[in-house]
């Protein structure tokens, strides 16, 4: 199937005898905005870690654009077009906001071996970095140390770093974790707006069902070591198995 950008085929993974996944299979369509939900400890982040090369599956294949990427190094997978933002903010804290983006752009353009030009003089790269910060609303904080940003802005910078790589598939691990309700919707509106504008495939993990059912085209429920159900928000919210296992009766 050529319209599947990513296919997970019979992936299993255990840690020290504890099985997290057994024969998980699912496929993500090109251009889709989808959510992965599931109870704590179901392995949502582990699934992200397997896809992005942080962990290697025990068995099974992970096919990205027709190529098996299971077991490849994270930096190779990034180069193939998968970028991620993290559940716990994961930026370069003692570098300024703009430097976070500049270093990512340098890496994306494979300019890391330049030992001559001061990185402050890379005009094109800096202009592009300002554009990116503008698009996520952080350009007024460009020269602040990124570690001193408010939590919500650090999460947005984390997403901006991933976006800078111009991935074909963007994976966001709880983009709204730890945010206040207003911040959550601001962030989610930004994510939705980015998805509509740059037309890439996005998968995100989220616990807030209002958000999940509000913006996703498709929802996958990870539970009992496998994909318990997948479908449109409407289908999932009506699925008896999912209600019993995760959502609870009142939904």
């Amino acid at each position, binding site marked *: 199937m050529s319209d599947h950008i990513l296919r997970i085929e019979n992936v299993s993974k255990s840690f020290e005898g504890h099985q997290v996944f057994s024969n998980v299979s699912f496929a993500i369509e090109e251009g889709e905005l989808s959510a992965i939900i599931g109870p704590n400890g179901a392995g949502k982040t582990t699934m992200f870690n397997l896809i992005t090369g942080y962990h290697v599956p025990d068995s099974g294949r992970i096919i990205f654009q027709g190529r098996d990427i299971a077991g490849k190094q994270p930096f190779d997978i990034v180069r193939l077009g998968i*970028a991620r933002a993290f559940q716990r903010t994961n930026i*370069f804290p003692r570098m300024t906001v703009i*430097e976070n983006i500049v270093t990512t752009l340098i*890496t994306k353009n494979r*300019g*890391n*071996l330049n030992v001559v030009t001061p*990185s402050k003089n890379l005009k094109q790269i800096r202009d592009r970095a300002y554009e990116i910060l503008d698009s996520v609303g952080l350009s007024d904080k460009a020269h602040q140390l990124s570690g001193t940003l408010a939590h919500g802005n650090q999460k947005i910078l984390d997403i901006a*770093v991933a976006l800078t790589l111009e991935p074909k598939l963007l994976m966001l691990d709880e983009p709204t974790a730890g945010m206040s309700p207003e911040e959550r919707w601001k962030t989610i509106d930004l994510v939705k707006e980015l998805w509509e504008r740059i037309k890439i495939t996005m998968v995100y993990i989220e616990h807030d069902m209002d958000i999940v059912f509000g913006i996703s085209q498709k929802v996958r429920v990870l539970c009992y070591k496998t994909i318990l159900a997948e479908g449109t928000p409407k289908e999932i919210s009506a699925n008896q198995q999912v209600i019993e296992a995760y959502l609870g009766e009142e939904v």
Partner: protein
Amino acid sequence: MDNTNRDRSSTQSAKWLGAALIAALFILPFVLSRMGTTGQYWIWVTTEMIIMGLFAMSLNLILGFGGMVSFGHAAFFGMGAYTVALLMKKAGAPLYLALPAAPVVAALTAAIIGWFCVRLIGLYFAILTLAFGQLLYMIVFQWYTFTGGDDGIHGIPRPEMLTPVNYYLLCLILFLICYFLMRMIVNSSFGLTIKTIRENMERSKFIGIHVRRYQWLNFIIAGAFAGLAGGLLTELNRFAQTDFLHWSRSAEPILASLVGGMFSLAGPAVGAAVLMFLKIVLQQAHRSLVELWAIILGLVLLAVVLFLPTGLVGLYEKIFSRSRS
């Protein structure tokens, strides 16, 4: 746009201070050479300070900028030292050929050792650098027929034109060239990549940086500069000996970086000079104080770690920007 006015004026005045310092360093040996034997002694000491400053700065590419603690940096210093010693004494090579060979041999050594070491992180990296360093030390120590073993290699020729003052000037010029090369590297895209890895190694991988490759290259660059320092010290002393490779020599640039400041380029060189100066002053004040050196050094380090985490250069920057604002 990148700098506020205050930052600009403080970098501006740092530049003036730097220029004044460089001018003073060029004038210094001519003043000292008029001061008899004490002057001669201090020319020798300041030359050694410059060399050890270069050695400390080279380590700091790994330590301060790369965020990796290496306990084996003396290996590259020693390889540079023995390269100069062997080429000049055994092969009869002139200094102008032997000296450039020092960083080349040191870089090759760093390439081999570093290839293994960057596969490990944190404490394991530190221990492996220590192990390789001591392995090289033992080889040089045992291989009597080639390296002279414990005796070292003595009587390295000194070109006639290299009077103490001229040799001081040669070391100073090479030091400055290395300083500006390192500054260029640190400020470049490569330097930013190294800092990025230091800040967050995991995240670096997820923006596509081949972390080990850049750590390895940085290790090689640092090794090359250390090799040049080793070569320069050999010619200053006119001998090379095994303690150039000993692990205690690897500790010196670490201490210098702590005292001077790991987060600036010149900090470790300042730290190296200050520590050497302190030791000599104590030595001249009273002989018994030298035996207390370890304790005094310990107290200095304790004070630095507790009260001056950014070192002397950090202190200078703090005082300066405060008086400005």
